[in-house]
């Protein structure tokens, strides 16, 4: 081989390598720190094997920091992120602002019709799917079957609030630090107000009427708050106004709670190796009052593409991989069915292997019983089960949460708390232009 030929061949190889390097697209994915998302980062070898021309860089942040950063980026059209992990609260607001890329053109084998209708409905705005669900959750009753048996009671699969009170009374033994019910009391729009807003739906309450007038002065909200305070004061643990998800999880795992109404994802924790009561836990739907709505919420962490992204095709390829049926099978093959991200696809719940997971059916039933587009008994002008999908809600929800948390701590009466909430929310909604 002549020197010239060698040089030409060498040059061709170098050009080919340079071309491949140039063709590589790097996308930045912003995500939250939870078990499912971290697991996905550990499975990227599968994505790279299928998509060698796409490189993924991760930005993992705490939920509130992530929300602040991606909101700033998307509102300023920054384009720093190509894929964002966002919740069902952001999707309707950002979708209406045209800040997100429609995912209606995902490949046919993505099988968008397989997405759970309630979850899909919460991520769709004006017919456009603006985010693909990575995992979904609702809330349900987790209870101690051994304590119920000892009390001679049986928890219905679909209990009423009266059933819950009866069970709470029977299971409470404060001398043994055993409390009938544990509920969120810590203030925050995603803490106590997620629970209380969902609970209020089952009492026929709503945040606003069709003219955006706050409804805290209505009897439905009074019934909600009275019931909540009664349950917690009579049968709840001490200092409950400081208890959020994690505090209640610890209490339940250590045998201090007869019942806990919270996120369906907690089911794997209370039946896991860190729980001292794992063998005694059973599940039921969130309670109702016979009004047609249950007190459960609906949430999904989903992947979306900001309109400012310059790499939308590569971002879509990633979302397709991370949220399709093959990904669920991949997780199952590597980590087992119990670790598959729940709450997104109908086919997962039809899988006989997944049906063996003890909380699978109740999770599906809970998700199916929530409707983000018709969350309340009476009509409302907003979307969202445990939140109101308007930009002002984060602030309003936290303010009202602080007021209700103070009522739980005994610092004010239920009537005073409701009057204060009504006054503050009315002022804010008037200032924001909702009330003319």
């Amino acid at each position, binding site marked *: 081989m002549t020197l010239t030929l060698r040089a030409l061949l060498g040059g061709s190889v170098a050009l080919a390598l340079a071309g491949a390097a140039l063709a590589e697209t790097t996308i930045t994915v912003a995500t*939250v*720190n939870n078990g499912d998302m971290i697991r996905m980062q550990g499975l990227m070898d599968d994505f790279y094997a299928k998509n060698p021309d796409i490189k993924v860089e991760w930005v993992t942040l*705490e939920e509130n920091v992530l929300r*602040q950063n991606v909101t700033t980026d998307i509102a*300023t059209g*920054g384009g*720093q992120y190509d894929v964002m992990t966002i919740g069902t609260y952001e999707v309707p607001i950002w979708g209406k602002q045209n800040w997100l890329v429609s995912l209606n053109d995902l490949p046919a084998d993505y099988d968008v019709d397989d997405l759970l209708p309630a979850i899909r409905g919460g991520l769709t705005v004006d017919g456009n799917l603006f985010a693909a669900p990575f995992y979904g959750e609702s809330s349900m009753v987790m209870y101690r079957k051994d304590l119920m048996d000892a009390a001679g009671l049986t928890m219905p699969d679909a209990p009423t609030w009266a059933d819950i009170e009866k069970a709470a009374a029977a299971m409470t033994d404060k001398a043994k630090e055993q409390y009938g019910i544990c509920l969120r009391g810590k203030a925050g729009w*995603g803490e106590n107000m997620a629970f209380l807003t969902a609970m209020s739906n089952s009492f026929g309450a709503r945040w606003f009427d069709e003219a955006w007038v706050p409804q805290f002065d209505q009897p439905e909200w009074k019934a909600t708050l009275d019931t909540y305070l009664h349950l917690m004061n009579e049968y709840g643990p001490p200092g409950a106004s400081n208890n*959020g998800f994690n505090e209640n999880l610890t209490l339940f795992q250590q045998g201090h709670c007869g019942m806990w109404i919270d996120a369906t994802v907690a089911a794997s924790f209370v039946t896991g190796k860190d729980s001292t009561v794992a063998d005694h836990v059973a599940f039921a739907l969130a309670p109702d009052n016979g009004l047609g709505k249950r007190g459960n919420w609906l949430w999904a962490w989903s992947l979306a593409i900001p309109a400012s992204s310059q790499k939308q095709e590569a971002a879509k390829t990633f979302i397709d991989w991370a949220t399709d049926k093959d990904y669920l099978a991949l997780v199952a093959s590597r980590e087992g069915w119990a670790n598959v991200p729940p709450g997104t696809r109908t086919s997962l719940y039809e899988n006989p292997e997944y049906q063996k997971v003890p909380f699978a059916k109740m999770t599906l039933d809970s998700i199916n019983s929530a409707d983000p587009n018709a969350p309340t008994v009476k009509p409302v002008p907003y979307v969202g089960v445990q939140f109101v999908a308007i930009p002002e809600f984060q602030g309003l929800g936290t303010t009202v949460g602080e007021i209700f948390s103070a009522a739980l701590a005994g610092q004010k009466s239920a009537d005073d708390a409701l009057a204060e909430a009504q006054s503050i929310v009315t002022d804010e909604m008037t200032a924001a232009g909702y009330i003319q």
Partner: protein
Amino acid sequence: MARAHSPRRMLITTIAAWGVALLIFFPVLWMILTSFKTEASAVASPPQLFTADWTTENYAEVWARSDYPRFFWNSVVISVGSTLLGLALAIPAAWSMAFVPGRRTKDLLMWMLSTKMMPAVAVMVPLYLVFQKTGLFDTRIGLVLALMLMNLPIIVWMLYTYFKEIPGEILEAARMDGASLWNEIVHVLTPMAVPGIASTLLLNVILAWNEAFWTITLTTVRAAPLSAFIASFSAPQGLFYAKLSAASAMAIAPILILGWFSQKQLVRGLTFGAVK
């Protein structure tokens, strides 16, 4: 004349000092202990100081899950870079304010300090846009500039206070001997002020190292320092406390060691001028 202290009084003072020191150090101790616990014992109720199942698994997992050396190097570049750049600007500024003050020098000093009273979030969107438009977003040089500007008032104030203690006559003598302004600052003033400059440098390295708002807001991947490293292990539900503690311990260890070895200079610098 120094007062003689009785042994009893010395004992009480020593116990009180140790008590206060332990109280201040307790959160750090708790974090370090938690980093060696399992997730279950980290959230045990009631909380336990010690556990039966110590583990180093959290450190292994944190190390495996993230690129610690990259975050660490970014922190070093950003904190040292912003401090050195700040000193380069602040030394001449403090010199002029200390030795050739104008009518408005005091007002200027107060105005500089007042910029520290503004909440950072108030300028978040404008600064975010400036960084985006100028290509400084997610770059180390961008963060060096941002943190330098943020800490400049403190650097100037510290140096000004220190320079005020140096007799102006010495600089005057140097000038009479024919020293240029450059020589006066570099060869006369700076050597005399080395302890003050060193303590200012150390304090600002610590401030820049611990800064979390701008370093998280203005970065994504490439320039993210250890503050972002910690944030990546935080979850609002309070899950993964043990791993979060391990990540935090890894993030503060370098600056704790630096603080430990330089505590004499730090204390001297911070208390300078307090007793005359």
